[in-house]
């Protein structure tokens, strides 16, 4: 059975589960088994989240208020931060999605389990999981003022820095993000691409379809939910990212995470802590919306493969 989401291998266990059924049938004793896990998440994830929410919704003296949330969305510096964040996220999501999809397809149409496939998949995993620090330094090494690519380009007649480019700008950051978004897209879209059965391509050809007709009428409609979902994840990914910005600059780039960090450290305005938390709450809400949309699209994508 082919599965689109999660890319799990088929179950190898023939024995049926001991217990199925809905909540009436779920024995509470068995739930104890997941209690440690749940408790851990509750304390160390739920805890910070609780303080974010409660802090966002209270003022400096602890009284409930919506002022912080309002300020986080309307104050000019925060609106600018949101705008930049949304711009960079959307742009790098789309670019990453397009190139990532092509790359994933190119890799997939080779031999399965070839060394190329393995290298690409582990590389994508590492690049996607490692985070911003080496990424930032890679781009400093390539496109910084004394970077390798900068020097080459200058030798070829194109002086980036004279033209106003800086690696620690929003553009530079976006460029760095794309390096990260493409592998993530490869990871996300490969299961969906693997779900494109060869029979569909052959049947389409047999019925007289050109390659373009096949893609337009058969493959892309099947892939559409997965593509959209993956792009959303890329968006959320860029929106939430901060490590790269931190490593690349001292946090001088206008972004929502930067605004949060400044507010917390009292850099900009003393006593802005709660507004910082409100900004955090805003981020959580944006990403929740993105994830819910993603899950809905995944469900849609799986519809084609349910038998």
């Amino acid at each position: 059975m082919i599965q689109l989401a999660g890319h799990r291998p088929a179950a190898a266990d023939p024995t049926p589960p001991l217990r199925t059924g809905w909540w009436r049938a779920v024995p509470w004793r068995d739930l104890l088994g997941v209690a440690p896990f749940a408790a851990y998440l509750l304390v160390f994830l739920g805890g910070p989240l609780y303080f974010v929410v409660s802090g966002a919704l209270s003022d400096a003296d602890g009284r409930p208020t919506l002022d912080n949330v309002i300020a986080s969305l309307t104050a000019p510096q925060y609106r600018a931060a949101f705008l930049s964040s949304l711009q960079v996220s959307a742009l790098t999501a789309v670019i990453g999605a397009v190139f990532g999809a092509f790359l994933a397809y190119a890799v997939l149409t080779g031999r399965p389990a070839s060394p190329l496939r393995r290298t690409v998949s582990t590389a994508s995993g590492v690049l996607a999981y490692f985070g911003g620090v080496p990424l930032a330094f890679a781009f400093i090494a390539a496109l910084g003022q004394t970077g390798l690519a900068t020097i080459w380009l200058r030798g070829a007649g194109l002086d980036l820095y004279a033209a106003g480019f800086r690696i620690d700008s929003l553009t530079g950051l976006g460029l760095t993000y794309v390096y990260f978004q493409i592998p993530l897209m490869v990871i996300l879209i490969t299961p969906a691409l693997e779900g494109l059965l060869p029979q569909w391509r052959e049947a389409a050809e047999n019925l007289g379809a050109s390659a373009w007709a096949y893609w337009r009428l058969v493959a892309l409609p099947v892939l559409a939910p997965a593509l959209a979902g993956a792009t959303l994840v890329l968006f959320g990914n860029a929106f939430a990212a901060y490590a790269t910005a931190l490593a690349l600059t001292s946090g001088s780039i206008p972004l929502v995470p930067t605004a949060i960090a400044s507010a917390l450290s009292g850099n900009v305005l003393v006593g802005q802590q709660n507004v910082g938390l409100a900004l955090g709450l805003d981020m959580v809400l944006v990403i929740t919306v993105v994830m819910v949309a993603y899950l809905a699209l995944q469900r849609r994508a799986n519809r084609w493969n349910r038998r």
Partner: protein
Amino acid sequence: MSEPTTVEPAAPSAAPAARGVTVEFRGIRRSYGTTHALAGLDLTLRPGELLALLGPSGCGKTTALRLLAGFDRPTEGRVLIGDRDVTDVPASKRDTGMVFQAYSLFPTMTAAENVAFGLRMRRVGAAERARRAGELLELVGLGNRGGSFPHQLSGGQQQRVALARALAVSPAVLLLDEPLSALDARVRVQLRDEIRRVQLAEGITTLFVTHDQAEALAVADRVAVLDAGRLEQIGTPQEVYGNPATPFVAEFVGVQNRLPAERLDGGQVQVLGTPAVLDGEAPAGALTVAVRPEALAVGGGGEPGTVVSTTFLGPVTRLVVDTAAGELVVDTVSRPGLPGIGERTTVGLSTERVRPVP
């Protein structure tokens, strides 16, 4: 598991030859390095006939089909449809209609849209497409399911839609790649007959690939048996079953018992104590004949033996009896009183003609 086939009479070749074209494989070789999927295939399909390509996995039957469809290029040889050499023609321009083993329907389209797809590729107008799709869905018995999506249809229904889709473009050749293998047994028989009915009604030259010899015998005008890339025998189902030309065909198509025979005067031979006429030539010396299970009987005299196993197949019971001539497989009409496991009985010939082993 083969049943003793109730052999259907050969289909009348008075099928409307309007759509039927000749298909020819001329000297086809398909090699992968040192492996030969097809090692020299010369095969001609007559207009309007259903030819079954039968053989075990890896025999090259699917390769031959795909070469005809255009999904693969032969290393050597030519493929002709009608008078046209299509060896260098891409798959999308070959005028063939293919039904795949499973899961070939486009998942984001309804059944009707699937069926109409080929027409859409040929720029047929929407109204005409809808009409033709409706017509074909009626033909395969799914007239009211045009608006369903593939995942809402059962396996058998999906294959019917696939058949309708392949026929919608009125192809010169119909290609069936093990279309029944993925289906439940009951649905398989139903759909098999359905496919044959539609194929006869349309009079379309058809290549039917299968590894199930009962299927091939039941549905085909002629059967071509392949093994390891070579054509072993081609003939009507009766010919292939009754007169296997090679040991492989004899073993693959149905079961055969190998029995020693004594030559008698007057061209007759004696098998299991019964005289019979020998069909065919055999070299001088020790003679071995091939006898199908349904040509043997138990309990009526002959070679004594012990029943080793009995398998109840419904209308027929298959007994394996251990005798001095080896373990013999006997198919007999099911009735009470047949010997059980461990019981002694006799095995004798219930036919008058035998043939030598190929």
